[in-house]
């Protein structure tokens, strides 16, 4: 019994310490933003490895998700003779939920894990300490550019995911199943609101980008500097990111779409 309590107490303490370190790390990262903006080259390099290299997987997944939505939506809606609302269904589910969430999950798997492994390995091979020895702040030089790049890339990737998905749904719905093209687009435009749907979707993706990049960078920076430690940190990044994305998505949805 005592052991159980002791274990619970220890877990809580460790959890809170980690949260505290994470917050301190985040504040340090944010305080470095000004110095990164003075050296945009660092940011461009990271935009390349985080954004551009995630581009292809996002586009392809978006296309297939949109196509599947088109197919499944058509089968169900045609039972009610409401095939014309296929556009609304595909676009609303992509813009509100699937776009931000799935692209954030893919982002965590593709870019987040790479960030953790990269930084964890830098720590294991003492590159970070080396920088400190040369009076270069590793937070400003390494962490902040990656953080900013993740924050900027995520909304762009989510928007691309939704766009390609809607076009994929268009391809399957209109090209393959013969839904009326005018109805597909006009119903979509009539039902989707710029403020309520598009902006809220973008806000979601910014929040997810923030959280995912933060987790990935912190896990890498906080990893035990051994090969096993880095591998565990990478796993934790993907798992924790997925949990945070899905949990936050529920909270954000409840806040945003509550009063409809």
């Amino acid at each position: 019994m005592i052991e159980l309590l002791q274990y619970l107490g220890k877990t809580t303490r460790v959890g809170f310490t980690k949260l505290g370190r994470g917050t301190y790390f985040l504040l340090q990262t944010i305080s470095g933003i000004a110095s990164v903006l003075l050296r945009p080259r660092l940011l461009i390099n990271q935009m390349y490895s985080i954004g551009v290299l995630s581009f292809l997987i996002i586009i392809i997944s978006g296309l297939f998700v949109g196509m599947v939505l088109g197919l499944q939506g058509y089968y169900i809606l045609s039972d009610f003779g409401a095939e014309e609302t296929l556009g609304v269904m595909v676009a609303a589910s992509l813009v509100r939920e699937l776009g931000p969430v799935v692209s954030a999950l893919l982002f965590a798997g593709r870019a987040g894990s790479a960030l953790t492994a990269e930084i964890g390995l830098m720590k294991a091979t003492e590159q970070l300490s080396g920088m400190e020895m040369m009076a270069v702040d590793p937070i400003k030089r390494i962490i902040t550019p990656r953080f900013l790049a993740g924050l900027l890339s995520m909304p762009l990737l989510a928007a691309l995911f939704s766009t390609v998905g809607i076009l994929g749904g268009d391809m399957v719905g209109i090209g393959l199943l013969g839904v009326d093209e005018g109805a597909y687009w006009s119903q979509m435009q009539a039902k989707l609101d710029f403020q309520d749907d598009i902006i809220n979707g973008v806000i979601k993706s910014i929040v997810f980008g923030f959280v995912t990049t933060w987790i990935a960078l912190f896990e890498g920076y906080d990893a035990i500097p051994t090969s096993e430690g880095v591998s565990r940190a990478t796993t934790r990044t993907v798992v924790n990111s997925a949990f945070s994305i899905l949990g936050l998505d529920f909270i954000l949805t409840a806040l945003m779409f509550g009063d409809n």
Partner: protein
Amino acid sequence: MQHTSTQDTLVGLFVASGIVGLFFLALQVSNLSSFVEQDSYTIIASFENSGGLKVKSPVSAAGVKIGQVSAINFDPKTYQSVVKMSIYSQYNTLPDDTTASIFTAGLLGEQYVNLDPGGSDEYFKNNGKIEITQSAIILEKAIGQFLFKSAEEKK
């Protein structure tokens, strides 16, 4: 590490396509084009029952959308539902004996206000009041009445 200018180009391409995606969502997918505030004037109608009418529900005449509902309030004196509608300024020739009725698009579709222009020579001004209105048809009520009637006939 790739050559820096190639990298710049790719990053530029990525950012540009992301922005194009956002624009596509804003303009092609959502109603941003109608989100831009058009010049409009307000007319007011009181209904016995405004049913499932909502703010932003369309207001149409002869099947064409000419405005949208801007507010719905309950009048504590007359116990009626006061519906304010903003009509686009280009349609400023509605006669002041126009009647308003609440219809449903399709059997289960959303509700909208339909305006039937009358024959008066005077046009509505801002905050004009529609005198003749017809309430929303509540489906449950209609079915109830129908069942009641057919039961009566059988007697």
